[in-house]
């Protein structure tokens, strides 16, 4: 089984977000970068599928700056076989541009499965996986929370509002992975040492130029990055169950939500 996992280097979720001087970018000073947490589930799934099949290859692919090599090595330390960095200094804000670059790399790879995390925790774009599937003409299931594969077809479960969809699909396919599909392993210390010796291809790419489709082409462009509005200071209504009637009154008369 040959599996590709598309991963992303993102700012740590514990990071305090500071906005850059241009008012558009993230101020990266002091920010720690990690492997996107949802991608960890995708990497783990690839490793488990490969281990179960007893043969094959797990390839991790990232679009990002030179430092994303370290992110790739995290996946290699977990057990992936080799990495590809599609190197660019500017990761596009536009999901379709990213998808086009990835699709070009994946096209002739002969992969049985192409996995993504369901989204990246930095841009919340939530779109690159299914876009890659469209560009490659492959079937796609998003936010997979349960997966079974038998021969050249698979069954996935994805959560929808108030229920779960059970979805069948043929391989090869693109899947985006939800948290909880598996329990990602910690890279063992030996794995960390071994990762240094695994192949990592660096290929310069130039994404961008807009999407060029539709009737007017166009793209997504970041105009500004702003902090969320502060919530106004709340108040302690009181202590214990005795404060409940006052809370009810405030919710009815002041907040008007009851």
């Amino acid at each position, binding site marked *: 089984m040959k599996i590709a996992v598309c991963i992303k280097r993102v700012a740590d979720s514990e990071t305090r977000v500071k906005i850059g001087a241009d008012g558009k970018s993230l101020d990266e000073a002091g920010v720690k970068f990690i492997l996107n947490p949802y991608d960890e589930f995708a990497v783990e799934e690839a490793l488990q599928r490969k281990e179960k099949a007893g043969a094959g290859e797990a390839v991790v692919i990232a679009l990002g700056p030179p430092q994303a090599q370290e992110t790739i090595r995290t996946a290699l330390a977990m057990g992936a076989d080799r990495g590809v960095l599609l190197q660019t200094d500017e990761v596009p804000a536009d999901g379709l541009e990213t998808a086009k670059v990835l699709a070009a790399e994946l096209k002739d790879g002969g992969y049985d499965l192409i996995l993504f995390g369901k989204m990246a925790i930095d*841009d919340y774009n939530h779109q690159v996986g299914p876009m890659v599937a469209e560009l490659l003409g492959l079937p796609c*299931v*998003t*936010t997979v929370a349960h997966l079974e594969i038998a021969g050249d077809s698979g069954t996935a479960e994805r959560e*929808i509002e108030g229920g779960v969809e059970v979805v069948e699909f043929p391989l090869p396919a693109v899947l985006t992975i939800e948290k909880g599909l598996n329990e990602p392993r910690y890279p063992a210390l030996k794995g960390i040492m071994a990762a240094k010796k695994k192949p990592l291809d660096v290929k310069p790419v130039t994404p961008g130029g807009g999407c060029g489709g539709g009737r*007017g082409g*166009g793209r997504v462009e970041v105009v500004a990055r702003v902090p969320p509005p502060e919530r106004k200071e709340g108040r302690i209504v009181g202590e214990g*169950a005795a404060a409940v009637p006052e809370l009810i009154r405030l919710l009815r008369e002041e907040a008007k939500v009851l």
Partner: protein
Amino acid sequence: MSGVLAVLEQRDGVLRKVSHEVVTGARRLADASGGAGTVDAVVLAAGPVRGTDALGGFGADKVITLTNGAFGTYAPEGCATAIAARATSGRYDAVVFTASATGKDLAPRVAAKLGVALAQDITDLAVEGGAVIVVHPVYAGKALLKLKLTGTPVVVSLRPNVFTPVQRPRAGAAETVAVEVSAGRVRVKQVKAAEAGALDVGEAPIVISGGRGLKEPANFKVLEALAASFGGRAAVGASRAVVDAGWRPHSAQVGQTGKTVSPTLYIAVGISGAIQHLAGMRTSKVIVAINKDKDAPIFKVADYGIVGDLFEIVPRLTEEIRKLHG
């Protein structure tokens, strides 16, 4: 915007309420050019859909039901093909989805088919100087991105619960068109329903979340009782700590690696308020916190707080809410 296509959702032949929000958002775009724009609302189904007659009230000029035998359940590939074809033939300037589980799956497929950019899960939109400007929360709401979309059509999905439906009566003329598309290779075989009446935390107007303060999984029944007292309008959520501990399913998790919710009322019970939890609920309209530790960070974002033993406070609250609804 002269023409906006609003993509609705139905389940089992009944229009989902979130569709009202989609029409409302679409109407805002259409009105941005001086009220001249039209909103066509489209729903994909196997047959007639109940509830579409109300859409005129929210600003739909036309309600188009695209029927196909495969559309009884969600057919990702067939639906994407049908919507992309409609978007092209109708020469719309914008296509608006809801950022539901289905909408977030469908919108990227359609955008890729059309070859245009997409902004998912947006919380605001406006037209400035001919371009669509949207607000897209990133880093779990720790920052907001203002994005300029210049494609034609512009494709967006709207975060549920944010675009409060408003009455903007238009004709709402009904039209049914049978479409011929293949269902595609990805097929929904079954939809396992959650417990009867259970609302999704992402869509419920009231969310009551519990954390470690609940002490053990069985104690969530206290929160379930409170949710029930709201008469089917409330869902029970959970903090990452208790989801990681296996007390509650991941689908209930609110926060950075769970769901981002914006209910009218959010009640945090026994949740200290880790930054990653706050990220998932800070856009709620009103936040109530119940915690034994008066220094818990949750009180900093809460509009109203009660300090004390949740096992005394929550039952009392349940009782009072029941009286109100009694």
